[in-house]
Every structure is written in C-alpha cells, then in structure tokens.
C-alpha cells in the first residue's frame, strides 16, 4: 500500500493496471479507464444504431415498399459504384503528384522553404470541403468543361471513359470535375504522410548511396523510395478513405442521375453515397430516412475496409534493404 509498491511505467509488470490505494489515484484511474471504455461503447453504439435504424428497419423489414422488387441493392448499387468510381479516379490523379511533391519538399527544396511548405500543405488539408466545393463549381468546372472536355471527347472518345452518345456537360458538373476537385482535396493528406516517411529514411542509407557516386535521383530510387513505399501506399489508402466519405464538394458540384454511368464528361453521373445522403436527407421522412441510414452503413463498412487495409500495409513497414 505504500508508494514503494508503485510499479514504474513502461515495465512489464501486470500490476500496472492496478490503481494504488489512494483516493486521488482511484478517481484518476477511474476517469481514464472510463474514457477508454467509452470509446468502445461509442463505436458499439454507432454500429448498433446504424444497423438497427438502417439495416433492420429498412433492409430487413420493408425494402420492397420503396425499392420494389429490386430491393435495397438496386438503390445502393449505383451509389456504391459512383462512390468507388469517383474516388478511384481522384486517387489515380492525386497519388503520383503527391509523391512528387512530397519528394520535392523532403529532398529538393531548401530546408527553410521546406518547413514553410509543409506548414502550408497542412493548412490546405484543413480548408473546409464546402470551400473546395464552391471553388470547384465556380472556377474549375467552367474552365475544364470548355478547354478539356471537348478535347478529351474528340481524341480519347474511343475509351468508354470519355465517349458515349450523351452530350458533354456544358456546365462542367460531371464526374471528371468532381474527381479533380477530390484529387486536390486528398493531395495534401497523401503528401503530408509521404513527406513524413521520406524524411525518416535513415541518413546512413542516403549517404551510403551518395558516397558510391549516385546522383540525387539514383539515391532517391535506391534509398528513399524502397524505405517509404509502404508508408506511401498507406497514405494513399487513407486519402482514398477520405475521398470515399467526402460529401459536400460532390453534393455541390455533381449533377447526379440514378444508374451506372461510365462516361465522366456528361451531366448524367452516378451519385456517391455521402452526397446522396446530404442531398436527400433534408427532404426525407419515415422509411426514406431509414433507407439513407442503410446506405450510410454501407459507406461505413466500405471506408472501414479501406482503412483496415491501409493500416495493414502501414504496420508491415520497411522489411529490409531490398524492400
């Protein structure tokens, strides 16, 4: 009961979990333990409430009332397609650029400037998504619908991505525009994480490479990229998770239609789950709300899966010099 019994933190002693027999310690331990337990309770509540309100109240009991014979799947299918399609394009656009920018900040820019740039990138990650949405529809959409859309349609129209019978969206409110905006939004996240891992490359690896006469690019290919690969991939996956759940930018810019649409240049686009909820929720009542909550559950599962994969890759980490 005396303080001499108190185990030191970091030791492997299992009695660490035991609060010491003092009132203050008991209270403090109780508060901390309670907070940690509350995390568990909260997440259980999230899963429970979404499952009950969405899955049980709609999908299990009543889905043919709103969706007819197709059931819930016919409603959520196009939304899942739209979510994954838009996010995947955004990720394809953002990742290579983000890696290049991260390398620039970590290994090319002068140190003083690099710190400021890192700060600037962090700041950009915190700009609210409404702002990106407003920018996308006012500035970006008119520019790229006039300059890039016709060009893409004419020259790359043989690819289903850019060619179909439907006319180009003059307003620019199409999948392509949204993907570019999402790419701009996730870029700071991927850049921040990649920069961090690139900076952690062991100095000895880099100096060894340079000492053997490698140019800066060769050094990066030999030392930095193998070391940072898993970090970059997990950063990209986190960016993907962010893009999947992005709501407002999509809700503001996209001109949605129901169904599956491959062509990214038209005004007929598959909506995303999150944007569909934001657009429909204020005007929904009764079962419609339950249906939206059910789609929210699908989105939750989708992002959960992506994040789980990201963490897997991140924890795999650097496995040796040959990567």
């Amino acid at each position, binding site marked *: 009961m005396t303080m001499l019994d108190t185990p030191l933190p970091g030791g492997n002693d299992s009695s660490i979990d035991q609060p010491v027999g003092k009132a203050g310690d008991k209270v403090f331990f109780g508060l*901390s333990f309670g*907070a940690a337990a509350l*995390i568990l309770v909260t997440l259980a509540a999230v899963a429970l409430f979404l499952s009950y309100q969405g899955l049980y109240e709609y999908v299990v009991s009543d889905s043919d009332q709103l969706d007819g014979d197709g059931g819930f799947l016919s409603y959520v299918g196009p939304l899942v397609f739209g979510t994954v399609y838009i996010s995947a394009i955004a990720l394809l656009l953002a990742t290579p650029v983000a890696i290049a920018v991260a390398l620039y900040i970590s*290994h090319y820019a002068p140190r003083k400037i690099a710190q400021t740039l890192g700060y600037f990138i962090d700041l950009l990650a915190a700009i609210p998504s409404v702002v990106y949405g407003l920018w996308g529809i006012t500035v970006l959409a008119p520019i790229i619908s006039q300059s890039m859309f016709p060009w893409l349609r004419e020259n790359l129209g043989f690819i289903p991505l850019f060619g179909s019978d439907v006319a180009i969206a003059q307003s620019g409110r199409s999948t392509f525009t949204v993907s570019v905006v999402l790419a701009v939004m996730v870029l700071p996240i991927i850049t921040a994480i990649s920069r961090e891992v690139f900076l952690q490359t062991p100095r000895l690896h880099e100096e060894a490479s340079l000492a053997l006469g490698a140019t*800066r*690019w060769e050094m990066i290919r030999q030392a930095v990229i193998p070391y940072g690969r898993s970090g970059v991939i997990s950063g990209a996956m986190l960016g993907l998770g962010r893009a999947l759940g992005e709501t407002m930018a999509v809700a503001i810019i996209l001109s949605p239609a129901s169904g599956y649409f491959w062509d990214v240049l038209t005004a007929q686009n598959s909506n995303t789950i999150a944007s569909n909820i*934001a657009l429909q929720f*204020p005007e929904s009542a009764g079962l419609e709300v339950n249906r939206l*909550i059910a789609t929210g559950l699908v989105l939750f599962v989708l*992002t959960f899966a992506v994040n789980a994969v990201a963490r897997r890759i991140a924890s795999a980490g650097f496995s040796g010099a040959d990567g």
Partner: protein
Amino acid sequence: MSLTASTIEPDLDSDGGNERNDMTSGSLDGRPMWGIRVVSVAAGLAGYLAFGAVNWALWILVGLVVYVVTTLLVSRFVESPREATDRFSTAVMTSAFAVVLLPLVSVVWTVIERGSNRFDWDFYSTTMRGVIGEGGGGYHAIIGTLVITALTTIFAVPFGLFTAIYLVEYATGSRFAKAVTSLVDVMTGIPSIVAGLFAYALFVFLDDIPALTALSTGVGHRSGLAGAVALTLLMTPVVVRTSEEMLRLVPNELREASFALGVPRWRTIVKVVLPTAIAGILTGIVLAIARVIGETAPLLVTVGITADVNWNPIDGRMAALPVFSYNSYKFPTLPVEASQDRAWAAALTLVLLVVILFSIARILSSILKPKGLK
C-alpha cells in the same frame, strides 16, 4: 527529424564544386540551367501573349513542359545520360510542385476575391431573419458555429485526453489498450456524414425516452447538441492520437524521479507529465478544432438551418457557417448574386477561422515548449 532534409544538398545550381563534373564533357551547373529556366518562362509568356488570356493556367503548364523537356534534351547532349535523368527528375518534381500550387493558390485567391464582396460589418452583425433579397448576413451562423464548436470541444477534449492518459500512463500493452487503440483508428476513419447519421439516430432514440425528450425538441429532431455529438465523434480520435503521441515523448526518467520522491501516480501525471507535454497537447487540440469547425455534412443532417440567432443547443435548429454557406449557394433567393456573395463571405470567414486557429497553434507550441526539451 528535419535534420535529414538538410543533410543531402548537393546544390545543383551553385557555381562552385565542379570536381565531379571534371570527368564529363561539360556541365550545366550555374548559368546554363538558368538559361533553360528563362527560356521556359519566356515560352509560357509568349503563348499567353500570342493566344490571349483565355486560361493563364494553361500557359504555366506549357512553360513547365518546355522546362522539363529542354532540361532533359540539353543535359543529354552536354552531360551524361545519368546526369540527364537526374536533372529530368529534379525538373519533374519542381514542376509537380508548381502544378499543385495552381489549384491551391486559386482556391485561396477565389475565396478572398469572392468573399470580400460581403466582407463588411453588415455581414457580421445581421441575421437572415426576414431577409429575402440583398442584405442580411451570417451573424446567426457565426453564433451557431461558436456554440456547437465550443460544446464539441468540451465533450471531446476530456474524453480524448483521458483516453490518451489511460493508454500511455496506465495500460501499456494490455489487451484492452490494444483494442482501444485499434478502435480509435476505426473512429478516425468514420466518414463525417456517417457520424451525422449516428447522432441523428441516437437523438431519435432518446426522444422516445420521456425523461430525455427535452434534449431533442425542435422539428424533426434537429438540435445543436446533436450536431456537437456528431462532431465529438470526429474530434475525439484526433485528440487521442496527438495527446498519446505527446505523452509518449515525455521521458520516463521524469516519472521515475517523481515516483522516487513518493509522489502518487495521479499527481505525477498532473504535475509532471502533463506540464511537460502541454505544448504539444494544446497544439493538437487547436488543430483538431480547426478540423471540425468546417464540417458541413454532419451538421446538415443533425442541426439543419434557421434564419435567426439561436443560442440554445437543446432548442431546435441552429445555423452554422458551413451549412449556411452551402444553403445560400445551393438554394439561392433572388437576386442570385446576393445569395452567392453571402455563401462566399461565410466561406471566407471559415477559412479565416482555420488560419487563426493554425496561428494560435503555432504560437502556443513555441510559447509553452518546456526549456528542457529541444
């Protein structure tokens, strides 16, 4: 950590240090590289002047392409293929950075330009009550944002901080701690709209309990409290993450010294561990506030929008800046420009709030840094 960045800086463009290039036939260091840069800028500028200002961004891109290609070709002829690849990669990285700056600078510039139309006292002092056309403002939305964000902070900070204290100080490596850690990861990944749906479902449920009906009055279960609960779900994992990281940085010797003097564990945490880590923890909290203050989707679902000031978070709908901005743009009243100006002014206010919070975080971290730590 940042040391590594500076260690490798064989400055490609400095005039000195030519020993390495003695082995090659020629070198592009110094003036030739600047020549290429000047040519590229000139190419972009020429295009802009010749074909008009339809899209200045396009000509910046043209300039960058010229830069990358000439660098590769010239270096290929003058220097060795290896040098050429190296210079090419440098040019590509630099160009990628410039390309990224284009949209980002454009975003910031547009917000300032469009937002300044209504960046006046009127916007910050009037509400939308009874306003149909021009005029009106976002005073009620600012109040709403402040109330909801303050509530969120009150919920999330103790919640997150105590969880972090548990993870670092009490339960190193226990199975429960591992479960909590991975659940915090899951929480980090919850899409914001899903957090909103959860809060909505929770308050619909609470409404059925007679004793708690007061919590979710308001038409359709909308209230500021529900919004704060949704945002708490998003903010807590961020607070846990940063606090945990900061607490782990506190050297174990400090704790051991305190224990050796007979100080109980909780006083050690309060008097020794927390003060040492406080700079990082506060910075993390401020940055977490900056992250949630612009959240739109969860508030759209849980709080809704009104035209008037509502200070009471358990009394029906409230307005918040992001939702106000979205609504003004998406459902404009005539004249449309007036609504759009209000949307942009709200967006500018939000960005300013984020910038202010970031500055506060920066100042805090430099003021509170304990002298013993670097």
